[in-house]
């Protein structure tokens, strides 16, 4: 029998063919499937309303105890809730514990930065994978998710108590992150501390002020606010340039807070008040009170998935976050969305971030902010 044509040259023959066929297989495997990044059809949301949406619609019209009585048995029958969130873990742990103590529902928690949460949900939805029932994250990402058409309508008396800026299509604000200047009390006396946003542009802070790398939403909101106050674009640019002049640019609010208490700089332009509050509570020499006003608030909210596997649990969780959860968030040092009773912030002017503008022209604002802070390096003479 003649196998010569098959065996090829000494040694390398079969192995060579094997390698070639191996690579061919690989190419074949990875070649099918089409474009991975082009917009895929929204498999899960095509056609009429999903089963979850039918339940939401039915319960959206109910109120009070009747609504709770309807949801609790259904949710406990479902038994589980898949939650994707960018809540920090200390808050999430407290929230989950309280919810699981109150209801017989196990919460499966996926936690990541807001951009990652968005990526994850979008990837899963495009593949028709039912990963989560509820998403709780930043306004910007929720807005993008709603644009992707994966969030369901949610309504009820608690939602209607949320301020208007927090009642968006597809999602509802549960809490606010407050942007305010903070300072190191060892380096800055109460008299020297900034009283207005304009103060930050004062040359006395050159080399002592920190700005954060990605706070373009803060920049956009303050810009628009000043515009409304009657400042010209030129005046506003000058103010931001004044801040950026000699500013130390930091990536991450945590690092910013840490370096502020260590005294690496005297003032942080736009840190979250809760980070500073936590450090202050531990005795670090930092403060953010009295608030420089207006305080800029970034809403964080909750959205129900159209494809939820556990729709009753999802809805119960949303209701609960807007009711029992609000007091819990306040106890965690956060600012709840619904104001009831004595409001610690009642004399403080709060303006929410312009989410819609950010989503529409976010890229341009990113670029502008990037430009502003990169001018910080061009300090000459001092």
């Amino acid at each position, binding site marked *: *029998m*003649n*196998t010569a044509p*098959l*065996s090829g040259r000494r*040694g*390398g*023959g*079969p*192995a*060579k063919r*094997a*390698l070639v066929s*191996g*690579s061919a297989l690989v190419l074949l*495997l*990875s*070649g099918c*499937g089409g*474009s*991975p*990044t*082009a*917009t895929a059809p929204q498999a899960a949301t095509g056609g009429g309303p999903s089963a979850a949406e039918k339940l939401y619609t039915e319960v959206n019209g109910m109120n009070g105890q009747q609504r709770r009585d309807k949801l609790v048995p259904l949710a406990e029958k479902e038994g589980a809730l*898949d939650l994707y969130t960018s809540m920090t*873990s200390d808050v999430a*742990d407290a929230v989950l514990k309280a919810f699981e103590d109150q209801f017989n529902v196990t919460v499966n*928690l996926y*936690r*990541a*930065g807001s*951009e990652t949460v*968005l*990526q*994850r949900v*979008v*990837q*899963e939805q495009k*593949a028709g994978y039912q*990963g989560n029932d509820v998403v709780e994250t930043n306004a910007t*990402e929720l807005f993008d998710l709603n644009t992707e058409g994966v969030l369901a309508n949610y309504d009820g008396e608690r939602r209607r108590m949320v301020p208007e800026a927090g009642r968006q299509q597809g999602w509802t604000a549960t809490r606010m992150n407050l942007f305010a200047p903070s300072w190191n009390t060892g380096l800055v006396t109460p008299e020297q501390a900034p009283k207005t946003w304009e103060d930050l542009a004062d040359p006395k802070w050159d080399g002592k002020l920190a700005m954060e790398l990605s706070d373009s939403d803060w920049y956009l909101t303050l810009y628009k606010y000043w515009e409304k106050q009657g400042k010209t674009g030129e005046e506003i640019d000058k103010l931001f340039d004044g801040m950026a002049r000699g500013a130390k*640019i930091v*990536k*991450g*609010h*945590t*690092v910013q*807070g*840490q370096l502020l*208490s*260590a*005294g*690496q700089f005297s003032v942080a332009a736009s840190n979250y008040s809760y980070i500073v509050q936590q450090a202050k509570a531990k005795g*670090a*020499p930092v403060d953010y009170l009295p608030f420089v006003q207006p305080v800029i608030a970034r809403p964080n909210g909750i959205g129900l998935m159209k494809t939820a596997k556990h729709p009753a649990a999802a809805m119960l969780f949303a209701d609960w976050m807007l009711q029992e959860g609000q007091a819990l968030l306040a106890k965690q040092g956060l600012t709840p969305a619904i104001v009831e009773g004595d409001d610690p912030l009642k004399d403080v002017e709060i303006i929410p971030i312009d989410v819609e503008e950010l989503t529409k022209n976010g890229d341009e604002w*990113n670029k502008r902010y*990037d430009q502003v802070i*990169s001018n*910080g390096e*061009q300090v000459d003479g001092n």
Partner: protein
Amino acid sequence: MTTASPAVSARRGATLGWLRRLGTPKVIIIVVVAGLIGYLALVPLYYLIWGTFFDADGFTLGGFARAYGDPRVGDMIGNSLWFAVGSAVLSLVVGTALAYLNVRTDVPFKGLFFAASIIPLIIPGILYTIAWIFLASPDIGLLNKAIEPILGPGFFDIFTVWGMVWVEGLHLSPIVFLLMVAAFRSMDPSLEESALMSGASRWQVFRRVTMPLTRPAIVAAVLVMVVRSLESFEVPALLGLQNGIYVFTSRIYFVLRSYPPDLAAAGALAVGLLVLALIGVTISNLVGRSGKTYQTVTGKGFRPRPMELGKWRPVMGGVIVLYFFLTVVGPLFVLLYTSLLKFYQAPSAEAFASMSLDNYRQLFDISDAMTALKNSLALGLGSATLVMILMAVGAWIVVRSRIPGRQLVDHFSFVPLVIPGLVLGLALSFVYLRSPVPIYGTIFILLIAYCTRYMPYGMRYAVTSMHQISAELEESAQVSGASWWQTFRRVLLPLLSPGLLAGWIYILVVSFRELSSSILLYSPGNEVLSILIFEQYENGQFTVLAALGVVMVLTLAVLVIIAYKLGAKVGLRQD
């Protein structure tokens, strides 16, 4: 029975023969390994290339315009190259010198070496960098405070390109150290001895004999270092941005931050890195291939014997201790110190009075801490072992076999090095969300991600070792009747073991830090340690984070010591 015609039976015989040939362990193993390497590399590469060159309207080069069209791109490239080359040179010099002293001389304090070489690798980048801010910031740096009476305020400034080079170079030097230790271990000292006998000075021997013999390892190290530091963002972000020093990768950060992430621009940057890296791999193989020049492990018996340093011994000992204090004790002290405080403050009587173990207690309260530790261990051990086994065979294909296209295996194995972690995560979730095998949502998708990410390192370690082993050893085994598989298992694997062990340790250690793809791919119950670190970071709990860092350093140090003790029992023994 004569039902089958002769022609048919002949063909069947031929087919059977063919199958038998294909069915040998050698062929099966080669096919499986080459296939796996190709598969692991091509999945993210395909995703990246597609995202880079195609959008909804078809072929486009817009990503390149957005990536490279920034007006500051010239500055950025300049800073990046300065930073990358500086870090590569620093890590190369430090890593090589330490490895040489450790393996080839009778330098004192050898026990400190492994600590000095491994600990910077274990400490998460963000902690290592912040520790250096606390040490060498001109405003609050402890080192600056300490030398202020002599040299005036703000002598060290970590917020400069040199500061970035320093931190990144030290953080990367363990990779070089591990590579070079393996290379020096497999080197026949008789070559150096002959040179010494012939009247060469020690320095001449080092420069003219020792260094050239380890060239494959050096080239591999330079290649990995330069690509790594070109890609690094943590150090430039924390140290460079403060003074407006932008590097190339800050572009990747910005383009991936927006929604939908600008994969085209990120891809365009990655493609640039890929081209650089492939040129490097080709050069390194040309260098490694030139004859038997580097094959120092031959049929001749040898025992690497330490060289006596003589009067230089105490000097070198002093250098080691100094280095150890600078790179390990300093940052680790800052971490330990911070982990005992409520918030970071400069050392003072008040600070020491407020110290407690609260942060460690809090660590135990983190609900997922044990699960995460378990998962990280399983993933680290699993991916390190799998990658090194695959790459041992892969290196054989690349270096030893004569199979046409073998270079592809090498190139593929290098691809993941240039793919940003987030893009890898997106690519994997895209593929496995659609795979009929339920891998998405399990820990296996993390295992696949880790194997992909660490394949390039494993390949460099394995190929470098393979270059040093002479083919004559295998040939003798085969002449004596051993099969390919027996030769591989009984001759090659033991000889490769220093390199494989070094790669294994490296992967084990860095896998504990992998965040960018883990965070997208993990699922409830499959948390890993790096995710806890990220959470504590997000919480603003820097002191708890420092405690977690200390615990990680201890855990991994124990593992690495065990690995070395076990590793010393196989392969080339030293005494």
